[in-house]
């Protein structure tokens, strides 16, 4: 699964994207956020406030309870400020 990061999530993680291989018990976006936090200080910093993190699965907005099974690309980013 490819993970992509934007804005201050990207800056805090220190990567624009990476391949990730979460274990089988990581089933939802919320699970994935918890798993990411345990991966290191940069991830803990990026994802410390789960409420401030938006997610997209294969380029579609999802809520944190969305299942990640079969997803090729997961994106994490702050609330959008375009326009």
């Amino acid at each position: 699964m490819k993970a992509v990061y934007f804005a201050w999530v990207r800056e805090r993680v220190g990567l624009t994207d990476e391949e990730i291989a979460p274990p089988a018990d990581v089933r939802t976006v919320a699970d994935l956020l918890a798993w990411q936090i345990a991966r290191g200080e940069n991830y803990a910093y990026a994802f410390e406030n789960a409420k401030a993190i938006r997610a997209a699965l294969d380029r579609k907005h999802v809520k944190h309870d969305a299942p990640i099974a079969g997803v090729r690309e997961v994106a994490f980013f702050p609330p959008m400020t375009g326009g």
Partner: protein
Amino acid sequence: MQPKISVRTEPFDAAAESAALTKGRADIGALVSFIGLCRDEGGALAALELEHYPGMAEEEMARVAQEAARRWPLMGLTAIHRSGRIAPGEPIVLVIAASGHRAAAFAAAEFMMDYLKTRAPFWKKEWRRDGTAGDWVEAKDHDDAAMERWREPGKRGE
């Protein structure tokens, strides 16, 4: 009606985009254009840096445009969003809605902007005149509220 969606770094030509929608036809009665500009109230801003999620940004803009086309009888719909560094006073985003009547054109253009603000994956970072990075612009509650009102019954121009 096929909406025109674009994300790009270079400036847009609003007049040319309007002309492209109206050229050779006489059934359009109303054309509403919105231009969002990089604003610097305090005088300390060198530029806004617009980051976007390539691919998803275009797709989400297209989804919002399709929703607008479903709600209102549109004869043309254009949405162009720039990325990269944009100086104060420069345009960031353009939306043009064409319809037979003004209520639909106004509503569709405002709907597009309200949805783009909260759904299109763009983020703004401030760069200060002293060369240092400023803050990431924070999302505003009133933008969410602006989007939510389109879910209420009795929406305008429909």
